[in-house]
């Protein structure tokens, strides 16, 4: 096993899947010769050549549409949007076709493609480079929406996404890209899409998060334990849609208190759906109103203020405290 950053782990997943399956094609802006804007596709073109690793024009709609065509044809395209903030140009292709082709063709065609996008703030980037708008995709029937949180689960989930018979939007937390290293096994490892994980067990309060926000959430859980003896259970969603509500609703029935953490804007964000599921499945076990620690309902500020926008451990600890003291 080697210690890898998330960028290296994603690269490993692509490398191995391309070796195993000739149908896997990588395409996007600068994914070939340049190796990708974040180097996720580094070395692929040298190994698999320009027929399987394609530099495309700067045209997100075209990249997505091209991928849909290849997928329907029988290939397994993995296309890259340089930043999720530019992926909305591809929204029409994804929403109108990728998400609908299976239904439209009554199951005769399906679209086994992956739309990879670095997402999220905390890297001092420019406008359109820091959004967390997973709700757009998660709200679209027919799309799967996956957000890993660590190098190891990023690799295992990307393998699943590539093999999935339907379109998967794969958001990569760029704040985690090179934040730390983790042991990633050389041999194949997959994680099922649509399954969340308990990453820390506890009995006093349930914290639900995913992606980049998982890390301040875990930091808050550690502080709560040290400062107040509070045992927080932390659940990493890993998949936003289809949402696995088994774990967090069961955890809420155990703890009676839930705080949801994400950097996406608050209103109509994933937290709202999680709260709704809690109402439906855990209502009679709640000891306090479910709270959300999220981004605000504004466009994420530029780097000077973005740390005030992103949910940090302080905000999470305070929300948990209010929940416990309710």
């Amino acid at each position, binding site marked *: 096993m080697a210690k890898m950053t998330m960028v290296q782990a994603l690269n490993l997943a692509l490398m191995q899947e391309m070796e195993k399956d000739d149908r896997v094609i990588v395409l996007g802006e600068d994914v070939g010769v340049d190796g990708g804007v974040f180097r996720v596709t580094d070395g692929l073109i040298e190994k698999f050549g320009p027929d399987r690793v394609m530099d495309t024009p700067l045209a997100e709609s075209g990249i997505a549409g091209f991928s849909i065509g290849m997928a329907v044809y029988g290939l397994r395209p993995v296309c890259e949007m340089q930043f999720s903030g530019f992926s909305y140009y591809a929204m029409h292709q994804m929403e109108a076709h990728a998400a609908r082709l299976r239904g439209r063709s009554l199951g005769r065609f399906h679209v086994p493609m992956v739309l990879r996008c670095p997402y999220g703030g905390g890297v001092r980037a420019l406008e359109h480079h820091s959004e967390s708008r997973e709700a757009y995709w998660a709200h679209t029937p027919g799309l799967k929406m996956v957000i890993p949180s660590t190098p190891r689960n990023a690799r295992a989930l990307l393998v699943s996404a590539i093999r999935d018979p339907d379109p998967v939007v794969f958001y990569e937390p760029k704040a985690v890209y090179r934040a730390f290293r983790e042991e990633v096994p050389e041999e194949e490892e997959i994680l099922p899409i649509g399954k969340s994980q308990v990453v820390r067990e506890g009995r006093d309060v349930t914290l639900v998060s995913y992606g980049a926000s998982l890390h301040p959430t875990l930091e808050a859980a550690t502080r709560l334990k040290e400062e107040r003896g509070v045992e927080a259970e932390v659940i990493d969603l890993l998949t936003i849609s289809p949402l696995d509500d088994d774990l967090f609703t069961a955890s809420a029935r155990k703890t009676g208190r839930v705080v949801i953490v994400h950097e996406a804007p608050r209103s109509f964000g994933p937290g709202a759906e999680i709260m709704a599921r809690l109402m439906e499945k855990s209502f009679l*076990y709640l000891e306090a109103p479910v709270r959300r620690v999220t981004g605000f309902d504004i466009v994420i500020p530029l780097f000077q203020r973005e740390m005030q926008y992103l949910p940090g451990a302080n905000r999470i600890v305070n929300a948990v405290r209010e929940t416990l003291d309710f």
Partner: protein
Amino acid sequence: MPVEFKLPDLGEGIHEGEIIDVLVAVGDTVEDGQPILVVETDKATTEVPAPVTGKVAAILVKPGDEVKVGQVLMTFSTEDESRVTRPAVEAPPKKSAEAPAQPPPEPLPAKAGEREEPVGKADEAPKSPGLSGPVPATPSTRRLARELGVDLRRVPPSGPGGRVTADDVRAFAEHGAKPAAKPEAPPVDKGEIPLAPAVISRVEFEDHARWGPVERIPLKSIRRATARHMALAWSQIPHVAHQDVADITELESFRRRHKAEIAERGGALSLTVFALKAAVAALKDHPRFNASLDTATEEIVLKQYFHIGVAVDSERGLVVPVIRDVDRKSVTDLAVELLSLAERTREGKTQVEDLQGGSFTITNIGVLGGTGFNPIINFPQVAILGLAQARWQPVVRGRHEPFEIVPRLMLPLILGFDHRVVDGADAARFLNRVRENLEDPEKLLLV
């Protein structure tokens, strides 16, 4: 506090009317809802009901007067001021269908002057939004209440914002009335606060080892029994402590004169012996201090015997052996019995029956010191007499100048009592009697 009564809005867009008749006179007592005025408008003749129960303090109108909506017509003095401050929880709305015969709760408090609607028929329940809405409780508490068959509206809340907590529900299920859903046995409870207050049954124990090394000692035998009994007494009885100081200078010289002689007969003539005599005299005069409160039947149980417990500090902890029929025993008898009982207690030789059946308790910690303390009543008794340390003190004597300052031996007395059964005035009278007996040894002879 006088309550102004203004002409209420009579409805149908009517703004004024003529007083046809005044049905009450100054000084009359009126019931809430009782007709007090007849007012004629251009549409009808209407009887206007009293807004409160009280006395008519002033009538500002006479027949023939034209009056406008909002004009002050009368003022009332209300006798029962306490109703105004009565906590809302005492009169929750009774919605349950199985008790239709019960009278509706009285209308609430009453800022009658501000009341704008005409008072409805007497049998209409008041429409107070604060009381008719759902009881605040978290969903998990509601589930617990449902599982335990507890009607949340009857549970006294202890949570923030008047919220009923899960502990409230558990305590109510354990100590409160039977579950509401038993039609064959309608609850006696009228939605009032129970006489035995609900308690939080369990509090989360925090991990103190976080702050530094700790040692854990099991709570055993007497310590455990004391802890349980004190927690019970403290949680069930609304305690009040009344205090006084007795001049025992004379008593002390009497005691010293006869100490040796009592010792020869195998007794110890301690202050406690005299306290027993003094207390029994006061108990005879004030039988409610020699009693217990039966919260189930809502009766005060007066005891016609005088078995007084005496708190003894033993190596094993606090033990309270009981001396039977104190009223029938002489000072000598008591001195002998108390000594032997105290010795047996310290040796751990008391029998169970030695510790049972007390109707009152005396605790004397004066040997150890202290100017006063707050004794916990020996549940289910009604009162406890505490003696702190007697000290020589300068006492001002005389009613007029020149005053005289003399050294006197002063004994602090504390009477802890259950305010459900007796009041502060009763306690003062009781303790006066004790004090007088202790101040005059001759009086003790007559007890």
